[in-house]
């Protein structure tokens, strides 16, 4: 079976900084892949290169075996690839419900059809289901910008799921989320993975979270993969301990 996502020798430099320095990785359908590594090791840049947010300086990205290197994020999104960013990215002026509708609307019908169709593009019901999943129902009509950080973070993640994506790349979903919410988030992501067969790639610094969630973990240091394997193995890997887990 063709892997869902493959990167071949992906590279990206910023001036003299080799942020991503020849990364090859395969993500199989149904998998939860954890990505760990020290600050500035190139994890977010890898995401940006995979998703067309920035152009790689070299290498190739394949989705379902098809070369999608340099495709625009919106086109990849319509192929069922979705993401969150390391920094919160909700639309503060819109209500929580509007944020979710926006996250799904471009997948409904044609652009002209949407202009003359219903205001909510027929998405209110599924947005409300998503709100229920993320326990945000009471906030449906609140302005997103007025929510607490943790609530905005949940909304941000919920938005990535609105269009029913096959592949979701999450950049530090647990960052700034409190302990009680953390357990809920892990269960939620697990459930999405098991019920809908959604595939995840998750960058995370919270070791307990990422190790207990992922099926497989890679560790990146200085733009290169230095370990790749089951969580327990990567955790014990001498190079990982030396360059990242350290103390």
């Amino acid at each position, binding site marked *: 079976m063709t892997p869902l996502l493959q990167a071949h020798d992906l590279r990206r430099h910023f001036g003299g900084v080799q942020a991503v320095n020849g990364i090859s990785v395969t993500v199989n359908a149904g998998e939860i892949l954890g990505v760990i590594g020290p600050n500035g090791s190139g994890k977010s840049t890898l995401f940006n290169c995979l*998703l067309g*947010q920035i152009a790689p300086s070299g290498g190739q990205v394949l989705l379902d075996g098809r070369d999608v290197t340099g495709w*625009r*994020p*919106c086109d990849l*999104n*319509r192929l069922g690839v*979705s*993401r969150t*960013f390391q920094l919160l*990215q*909700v*639309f*503060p*002026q*819109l*209500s929580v419900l*509007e944020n979710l*509708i*926006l*996250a799904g*609307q*471009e*997948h*409904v019908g044609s*652009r002209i059809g*949407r*202009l*003359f*169709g219903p*205001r*909510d*593009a027929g998405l209110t019901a599924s947005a409300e289901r998503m709100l229920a999943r993320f326990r945000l129902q009471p906030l449906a009509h609140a*302005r997103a910008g007025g929510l607490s950080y943790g609530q905005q973070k949940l909304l941000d993640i919920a*938005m990535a799921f*609105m*269009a029913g994506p096959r592949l979701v790349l999450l950049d530090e979903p647990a960052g700034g989320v409190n302990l009680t919410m953390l357990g809920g988030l892990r269960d939620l992501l697990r459930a999405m993975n098991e019920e809908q067969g959604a595939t995840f790639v998750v960058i995370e610094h919270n070791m307990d979270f990422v190790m207990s969630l992922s099926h497989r973990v890679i560790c990146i240091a200085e733009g290169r993969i230095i370990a790749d394997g089951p969580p327990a193995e990567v955790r014990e890997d001498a190079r990982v301990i030396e360059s990242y887990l350290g103390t």
Partner: protein
Amino acid sequence: MAHSSGRSLAASLLLIALASVLPMVLQPYGIYLLSLWAVYTIAAIGLNLTLGFAGQMSLAHAAFVGIGAYCTALLGAHGVPFPATLLAATLLAYGVGWCVGYPALRVQGHYLAFVTLAFTTLVFLVLRNEAWLTGGIAGISNIARPRLFATPTAYLRLCLAALLAVSLAVWWLLRSPWGRAFIALRENPIRAMSLGVDVRRYTLLAFAIGAALGGIAGAFYAPLVQYIEPSPFALGFSINLLMMVVIGGAGYFLGPFLGALIAVLLPEWLRFLHDVYLAFYALAVILLLLVCPTGLLGLSERLLAQRGGRPAERADA
């Protein structure tokens, strides 16, 4: 929370209805000013769409109005009936606006302001220098009004009908998924793109639709004044339109209605100030924007919120 809630539509319809009964008590000059208000409002609604909702800085709108006005005047002079010249002006401005949108795919903010400023200047130079087509500085006179709407009052009603149609269409657009996409473009284009919003396409649409509304305003302006020459469509008018949008409240559906009203009335009220009028006008604008950078509607929203009223007439989508 939408800057285009049902209440703001109702308020705008009320204004239009009021304007359509006012001729009974107005002198001809008042009727002319009211017609001018309707025309300016249409143009400002266009700029508000491009700038206020989609967040694309534009100083090109005077040029779009000019293109619409000249298109109407030139075709009209050849006997083309008004509905056809209106359609031509709208489509021409739409096409030109689409092209002017391309720089916005590369630059934003101040840089985009400069690019669109250059475009306005370019159009102005063409209108002034290509006399074989545009009549140059002598302009085009004796622009006919549609026969059924030849009197000032009838023509005012026609302008108001156009404003009504534009208001309803734009209100619909802003409340549709397109309006949401425009706001997403303004608020966070990178996130919007990752959610499947084709930022390129919507940027071009925001420019083209805003320009088309400018073209419509121009098509009604030419028969209103019946004589056009290049100077009303120079950079100063772009800045004037920008002020209408900003003073009314950029990103508020009702903003252009108020902004255009002030732009039409204030010069009249301040006429007694003669030469210092412009300085006074500028001062008033600076004061307003210092007190409330979000314009009159932003100010009223803030006051309402302070009094514990319902906070958000600033309702998006």
